[in-house]
């Protein structure tokens, strides 16, 4: 929904139902709205049964990779005698993405509940919510909600009087995009530099503190509560396109649109109607030019591609991109693509942990070349160099930050080559609005 919080009639508000409702932030308010019923139900179930319900529902990771959540949970072997951990990834830093921020600042108790359910399901007694340091408002609300839940005995040594232990702690990050990568997040949580780890071992075998760990996105954990309450079939039925993408998904929309905001739709919703109807279309006198639909790390879509897209995991891939984190960046015809992409490259260069050569050097060189093209000092050879660097940056590093930098550059050159060439040949970019004026 846009701001202020009025849901569009075509939205399906399951997770975002209480956005803008200040009372839902408090424990009493949350309980009045049916909060903690799912946790109560979960604590009365066998962990394996919870995993099965989530598996059956088809819920997939909402942080970017889209891995089936139930399957991820099932990797945690019960009774291995080791402490298990749940980490909630609330390090939302992918440019264009701000859905988890909304979830945490409006429904903090939903996340406490989701963490407690997730922890119990994977046999963990401790859940850490790793929130990026810049999120001062979500941090405030989450810490308040956790304190309230402890005081009410909902979490702690004797969660809801069941004798089961579920601890939930908020851990504040300190400014590093890379800590949203799950293994870097674990390193950071352990008090290390946020360098990603080589996999295997996978977190379910050796994760945080060397123990079996599951890392889930905020939205994924919150979605587990309504699934448990309403059943897997209810969730599975929410699908407009194909059975591999089920349920609702939050899409945060930003950039050059009439109504930026966080919208919740059933997966498979037509992207064209989403952009023009829900988000209100382009700003007055402008036209959409391109969309980056899943946060800065996914390929750029032309409007032809975007308008033909069904919004689900497979639908975005079929139209040359990925669903990613659901952070939709809309770019209109007043924006020079080269400037937009050069700034993204600078972002990745800044955020590279510098562990792998291909990434450390590649992101820096990509930025230098992109910026000289932007400034009208590029050559045609630069385009080939960029693509060549991009190829060497893809699939050669410990994590995918390197690939993420190469992706917008490669897709930008492929789909908007004319703008690159115009700058190289000394023709300036004339925004449509400027031409009108």
């Amino acid at each position: 929904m846009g701001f202020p919080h009025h849901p569009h009639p075509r939205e399906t508000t399951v997770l975002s139902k209480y956005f803008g409702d200040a009372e839902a932030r408090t424990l009493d308010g949350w309980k009045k709205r049916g909060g903690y019923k799912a946790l109560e139900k979960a604590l009365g179930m066998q962990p394996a049964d919870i995993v099965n319900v989530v598996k059956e529902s088809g819920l997939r990771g909402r942080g970017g990779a889209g891995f089936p959540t139930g399957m991820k949970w099932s990797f945690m072997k019960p009774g291995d005698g080791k402490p298990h951990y749940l980490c909630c990834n609330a390090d939302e830093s992918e440019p264009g993405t701000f859905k988890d921020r909304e979830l945490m600042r409006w429904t903090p108790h939903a996340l406490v509940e989701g963490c407690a359910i997730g922890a119990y399901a994977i046999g963990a007694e401790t859940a850490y919510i790793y929130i990026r340091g810049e999120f001062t408002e979500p941090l405030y609300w989450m810490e308040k909600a956790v304190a309230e839940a402890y005081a009410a005995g909902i979490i702690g040594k004797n969660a809801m009087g069941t004798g089961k232990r579920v601890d939930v702690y908020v851990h504040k990050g300190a400014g590093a995009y890379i800590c949203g990568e799950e293994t870097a997040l674990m390193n950071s949580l352990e008090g290390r530099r946020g360098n990603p780890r080589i996999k295997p071992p996978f977190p379910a075998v050796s994760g945080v503190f060397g123990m079996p760990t599951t890392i889930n996105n905020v939205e994924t954990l919150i979605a587990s509560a309504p699934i448990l309450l309403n059943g897997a079939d209810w969730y599975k039925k929410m699908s407009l396109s194909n059975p591999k993408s089920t349920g609702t998904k939050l899409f945060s929309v930003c950039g050059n649109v009439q109504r930026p905001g966080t919208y919740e739709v059933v997966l498979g919703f037509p992207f064209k109607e989403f952009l023009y109807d829900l988000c209100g279309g382009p700003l007055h006198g402008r036209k959409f030019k391109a969309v980056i639909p899943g946060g800065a790390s996914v390929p750029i879509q032309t409007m032809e591609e975007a308008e033909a897209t069904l919004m689900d995991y497979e639908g975005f891939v079929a139209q040359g991109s990925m669903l990613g984190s659901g952070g939709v960046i809309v770019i209109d015809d007043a924006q020079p693509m080269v400037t937009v992409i050069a700034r993204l490259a600078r972002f990745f260069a800044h955020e590279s942990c510098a562990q792998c050569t291909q990434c450390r050097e590649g992101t820096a060189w990509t930025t230098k070349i992109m910026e000289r093209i932007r400034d009208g000092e590029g050559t045609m050879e630069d385009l080939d160099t960029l693509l060549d660097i991009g190829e060497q940056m893809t699939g050669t590093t410990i994590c995918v930050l390197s690939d993420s930098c190469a992706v917008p550059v490669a897709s930008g050159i492929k789909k908007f080559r004319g703008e690159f060439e115009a700058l190289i040949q000394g023709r300036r970019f004339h925004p449509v609005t400027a031409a009108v004026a």
Partner: protein
Amino acid sequence: MTPDLVGGVESPDYASHDRAGHGPYTPVFVGDVKRELDDLLTRYPNKMAALLPALWIVQRERRWVSEEAMVEVAELLELTPAYVKGVVTFYTMYHQHPVGQYFIQVCTTSPCGICGAEDVVKAFLRHTNTGELGITSPDGKFTVIEVECLGACGFATPVMVNEEFIESMTPDKVPELLARLK
């Protein structure tokens, strides 16, 4: 939210007691602050995991993380000072030198960039009298930096002033904000 960090702080005198050669270093972790750290330690299976929270406490108390503070934290958590420094330098939010009383971070990553973030930066630089990114204004009040994605892209342009998060900043709202801070 956290008024002690947002406003009401006296003009910076951090150099007087917290920098080498400017008098003795006074430990951060004493009394209630030490108890706060002890409480944090119960959340983790080892001491090292409390490093980021401990550094946050240092920054809250001293407004930056000096080398002496790193040594103190290292001793408390049974780490080496070099290790702690390695961690401090990895994360952008720990100040390794004193900054202005109001540390202003303006998001300029692409989603905000296409909504006019550069103009917001220019307005801050002009009205704070800093003139340049990362430079503290002559009166010690302001430091302005560009920051990578603050994760509030739909509220372009988001700005952080110390711990306060401000949404939808525009160049014409800058003087009003600065007047409130002064």
